[in-house]
Each structure stands twice: as C-alpha cells, then as structure tokens.
C-alpha cells in the first residue's frame, strides 16, 4: 500500500543532543511537509518542500533544519533540542491542494 512512513515512532533524546527524524513516502508526491503538534494545539507547519524547493515558515526556529535528498525521503534535524521541542512531529505529502497524506507521527521526548 502506498503510504507515508515515519521513523522512529518514539524518540527520546537529551537536552542539546542533535536528533534526526525521518519520513519516507511511496506516493511519489512532489510536496512534503513537516508539522509540529503539541498537546491540544493545532499542527503547526515548520517547513515544506515543493520538489526540491525548500520553504521555511517565518516563525520556525533556526534550531530546526530539513533535508530532502530525493523525492521519497525527507528528514527533520533538530540541532539542539530544548525541553520546549518535545512534541509530536508529523510528516505529510501532497501532489496538489486537494489533500495531504499524513504519516503516523514521531513523538519526541527531550530529557
């Protein structure tokens, strides 16, 4: 089945220790997104790729970076995680505006 896969599902890291979350898709969609969602809040768009074009949201901290080495894979790098970065991180893909397909998310815990 075509899908959006996120690994790992749960990630524990230490304060200040870099961490990378990964997302892969078999849908061959040209747009990939990273969202941060904290408890009882709306998913917040961090950035998205339209093909290879990277689009950063104005309020995304510099601590968050992303890489998209090819159509199928996209990575979220948190260079120095703080306690406030503990959240669910959602990856999504789309081919058009009609809809986005989400992965199951990675829950990040920062100790």
């Amino acid at each position: 089945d075509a899908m959006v896969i996120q690994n790992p599902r749960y990630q524990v890291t230490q304060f200040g220790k870099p961490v990378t979350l990964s997302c892969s898709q078999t849908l061959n969609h040209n747009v990939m997104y990273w969202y941060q969602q904290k408890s009882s809040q709306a998913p917040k768009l961090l950035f998205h790729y339209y093909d290879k074009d990277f689009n950063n949201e104005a309020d995304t901290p510099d601590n968050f970076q992303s890489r998209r080495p090819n159509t199928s894979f996209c990575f979220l790098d948190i260079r120095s995680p703080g306690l406030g970065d503990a959240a669910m991180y959602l990856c999504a893909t789309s081919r058009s505006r009609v809809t986005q397909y989400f992965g199951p998310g990675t829950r990040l815990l920062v100790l």
Partner: protein
Amino acid sequence: DQQVKQNSPSLSVQEGRISILNCDYTNSMFDYFLWYKKYPAEGPTFLISISSIKDKNEDGRFTVFLNKSAKHLSLHIVPSQPGDSAVYFCAASDGSGTYKYIFGTGTRLKVLA
C-alpha cells in the same frame, strides 16, 4: 493570531444522532478547506474537502457546509457511530499556490453507544 479556530474542544453525541463540528476562519483569502480525523497514536486522515465555489459537499455520512460571508464551516456526521470518536481538525488554504494549510486546534468527538 489563530486564523483557523475550532472553539469547541470537545463534543459528546449519542450514537445515531447528528454530530456537528464547527470551524471559523479569519482570512478571507482562504478558498479551500479540509477536514481531518485523528485517532490516538495515528496521523490525521483526510475526510472531506470543500472549495469556496461551493457551499456544500457530501460524502456518505459526512457533509461539509461553507458559509463564506460568515467565514464559517461545519462538518455534519449523520448518523454518528462509536467509531467516529476521534479528534477532528479543519484546515484552510489560500490560493497563493504554496500548498500550505493552516490547521485549527481540533475538536474531540465522543460518540456514546
């Protein structure tokens, strides 16, 4: 400033009755809207969409209504089933071509058997 608002954090409905989930937006440039359903420990799943050129879209038990003048949309689920218990998010996009969506904070629906 929250451009997409879901003012009811939770809603309980009896099985078989209608569930109505509401969403308000402030940006008049929004022209495409999505509803998502999210179960615990899963990503959001697309439910139904509506374009601003329409005021209603129906898919089985799910109907979305759009009132552009009031900047309001609602999702109706009829009849409600226990399996519909989840968090529902509305999301809005403008026509700028960025393929970006702004999400509301979600409404937790509980359908009582």
